[in-house]
């Protein structure tokens, strides 16, 4: 791990360095630990406090406390335990059932046993795209709040290509529809990027406004031009079979190719940001626009480029949902993926690998929450509270450092890009 000893670096080593920076202490292992410690402890603390909320909102616990203190404590423990067991089995699967299914050798049963974890991956996929969109923007010094809107536009353009272009084989139709989604999102990112570069209008304000335009625009599209003929509900026609992302298993398992596309795109973003001159350019301008200008970068072009690429990634999130899950465009189909993405990019330290890991966490929690609601009667909102607390701890690492008496300060490159709320850059 010591770069001086071995100047030739492979991809993995460069990636490690990106995570470990700055390398000042001799023990490289402790650096990795430092970067991971805060998110990890934040998740643990979030889960613990989430348990407290579950207990506080449980009717049974109060009833048990009215009987006796001991049974109250027992009920409290049971409430929290059952909820998290439900969350776990909902998100990952029931280990006992998996084992039994594997022993029985029944294909259908095996697929069903593995469905929860596969469904978690289905939920993870749009998060990966969205998180990458935000992370790329952050690294380049722009704060893309408009991922949600870009998802809608990307989904709309993708759906349109999906149902209106016929006669293509899947091998062409799928890439074309994905491209349409990316371009739709890119357009929606380009506009605020261009506005910022040309007029100085702050991208935070403009992307939020672009969100509203996107929501209402897709409303109008679904009630008007894109409405499926003969349908009462405002939904678009189903996309053609040739535009659907292939699923790996029979219904009801929805696990589809999108997950692997997302992983590939994550690697591509990593490669772009950390291995190419374009990525270096973006990161340089993002970390210090003055130095970027001094070093000869075209700062305005980079802002537009970053917003456009960020929008394209968000558009892919929309395309993925249309082509892999819903197969049509419906109102409010995204339900907050774009906004959660901002949070999980932060959780993932704006690094593609971190984004993938954070997306897995969010996707799993989101999927497990449904099961928790059904099995343990815990309102799904608890998960929102849980996520909120995890993020709060991430965003304010001082809390975690104080609670666990961590002495080091984590310095990460990604963190500085959050400057630039105010003023011109």
């Amino acid at each position, binding site marked *: 791990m010591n770069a001086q000893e071995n*100047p030739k670096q492979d991809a993995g080593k460069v990636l490690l360095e990106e995570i470990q920076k700055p390398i000042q202490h001799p023990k490289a292992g402790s650096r990795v630990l430092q970067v991971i410690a805060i998110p990890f402890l934040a998740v643990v603390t979030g889960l613990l406090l989430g348990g407290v909320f579950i207990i506080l909102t449980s009717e049974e616990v109060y009833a048990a406390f009215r009987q006796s203190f001991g049974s109250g404590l027992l009920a409290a423990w049971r409430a929290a335990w059952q909820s998290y067991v439900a969350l776990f089995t909902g998100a990952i699967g029931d280990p006992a059932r998996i084992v039994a299914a594997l022993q029985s050798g029944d294909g259908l049963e095996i697929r069903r046993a593995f469905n929860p974890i596969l469904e978690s991956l289905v939920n993870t996929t749009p998060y990966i795209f969205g998180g990458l969109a935000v992370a790329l923007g952050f690294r380049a010094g722009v704060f893309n709040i408009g991922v949600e809107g870009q998802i809608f536009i990307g989904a709309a353009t993708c759906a349109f290509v999906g149902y209106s272009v016929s006669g293509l084989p899947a091998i062409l139709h799928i890439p074309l529809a994905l491209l349409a989604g990316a371009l739709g999102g890119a357009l929606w990112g380009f506009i605020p990027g261009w506005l910022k570069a040309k007029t100085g209008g702050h991208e935070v304000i403009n992307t939020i406004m672009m969100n509203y335009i996107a929501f209402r625009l897709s409303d109008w599209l679904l009630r008007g031009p894109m409405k499926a003929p003969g349908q009462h509900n405002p939904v678009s026609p189903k996309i053609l079979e040739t535009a659907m992302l292939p699923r790996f298993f029979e219904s009801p398992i929805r696990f589809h190719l999108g997950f692997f596309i997302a992983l590939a795109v994550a690697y591509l973003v990593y490669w772009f940001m950390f291995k190419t*001159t374009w990525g270096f350019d973006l990161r340089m301008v993002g970390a*210090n626009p003055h130095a970027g200008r*001094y070093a000869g970068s*075209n700062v305005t072009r980079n802002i537009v480029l970053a917003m456009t690429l960020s929008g394209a990634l968000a558009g892919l999130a929309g395309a993925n949902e249309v082509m892999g899950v819903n197969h049509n465009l419906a109102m409010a189909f995204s339900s907050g993926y774009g906004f959660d993405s901002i949070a999980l990019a932060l959780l993932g330290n704006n690094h593609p690998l971190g984004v993938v890991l954070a997306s897995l966490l969010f996707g799993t929690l989101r999927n497990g929450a449904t099961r928790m609601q059904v099995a343990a009667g815990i309102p799904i909102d608890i998960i929102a509270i849980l996520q909120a607390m995890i993020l709060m701890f991430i965003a304010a690492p001082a809390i975690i450092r104080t609670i666990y008496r961590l002495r080091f300060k984590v310095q990460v490159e990604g963190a500085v890009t959050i400057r630039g709320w105010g003023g011109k850059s």
Partner: protein
Amino acid sequence: MEPVLELRGITKRFPGVLANDHINLDLMPGEIHALLGENGAGKTTLMNILYGLYQPDEGEILVRGKKVEIHSPNDAIAAGIGMVHQHFMLVPVFTVTENVMLGEESTRYGDFLDTRKAAAQIHQISEQYSLEVNPDSYIKDLPVGVQQRVEIIKLLYRKADILILDEPSAVLTPQEVGELFKIMRSLTEQGKSIIFITHKLREVLEIADRITVIRAGKVIGTTRPQEADESTLARMMVGREVELVLEKPEYKPGKVVLKVDNILVTDDRRQIAVDGVSFEVRAGEVLGVAGVQGNGQTELVEALTGLRQVVSGAVTFLGENITNVSPRRIIELGSAHVPEDRQRDGLVLPFSVMENLFLCTYYKPPFTKGPVIQWDVALKNAEELISRFDIRTPGALTNVGALSGGNQQKVIVARELSRPIQLLVAAQPTRGLDVGSIEYIHGQILDRRNAGVAVLLVSTELAEIMQLSDRIAVMYRGKIVAEVLAEEATKEYLGLLMAGVPQDEARKQVGPIEAKAVRGRELY
């Protein structure tokens, strides 16, 4: 007489570093005691201990003969110790009065602020110590020198009588330094005691009553200005002989490299900052641009390096018109730029030393193959430059923000001077640096000059200009008011020109100037 402050055996360890090693120091009433040392010698750690920001591992602090425990700045203030930090702690959108009151608000009718009373008190303080300041001005409208006065008033308002001034002159113009020294004298005459932290030898000799030199966390010795001179102090500070006067081969100017023709440049507020300036810089010469900060030098440099729009006029570099072309084009033609504000323009602080060392050339071979960056080449390049330019860093992958100011500047110098260049534009290349780094950077600049590079040196340090330049241009209110050969310039003459005295009148006042007047003697 009993010392007003005494430090006995102060020791402070940080992981892997002994920052302060049994330091003894005493301060007499009415004394200016200079604490001299290179960056990283442990001066600031010691003062932070005194100010309650760190706790010493060993040793004790005595104020007026009584042992005190200082756990916070509040304890320090209570003991009568006040500190003016290098970077001011003021609220820019508050008035002077509000800033002074902050944390120590005087009130009436319960919780209503009594600004009038505070303003009167500030007025009284500023009369008493000749600290001229308008209590109703907003901080953001005040020049740096006056902001510093506000910091001092803050301490006096809190009844501090031991004042610690941490590198107070680093941010000031020569004129402001003069005023600061007057204020310091007036303070000590009225019984205040001052610890003056600095690494500028000349200032120490001018103002201090006693000088304590520390190096690598240890006290090397205490002396008096009458018994010391610059070279002895420099030797104590650095631990070896320091070349205060650099050897300079004969002045042999070559072809014109940079030609500036009647350019007009505006500042951020769209006021004219550079007003019809023309000059030439030839190969193998250093043209020094002297002037008090804020007379258009910053804007001039930015215009020449492509960072600021030229409104009219032309800039020609090796025969090519570079007026309003992109910074990258100017760099590619063979121009290097050591920017005035190194942390803002010259470096990306959260990036590694390696990345900062190829900041201007990352996009072309050998650092790239197609669009892909060759990190192994970048690392090799970094390691080579680190050893060649003696950059003190734990490694090539350390964040540049973690280095000391001197080493940060060395990173910039290494990057800019390692390229094949024809022109070097250096703005304030040694501001805030210690003697060792200054010596090194000056040597590098002269090396380039001797190798035939045209150098434009912009500095507010007159000594630096006189040490390095072959010709000196003086800038005043956006115009070049005089251009003289370095041999014919004296400090007095340049000082008058910088203050706006017309050339012929300045010459009359100074009298005949002997060619080859003592040069470089008063550096640092």
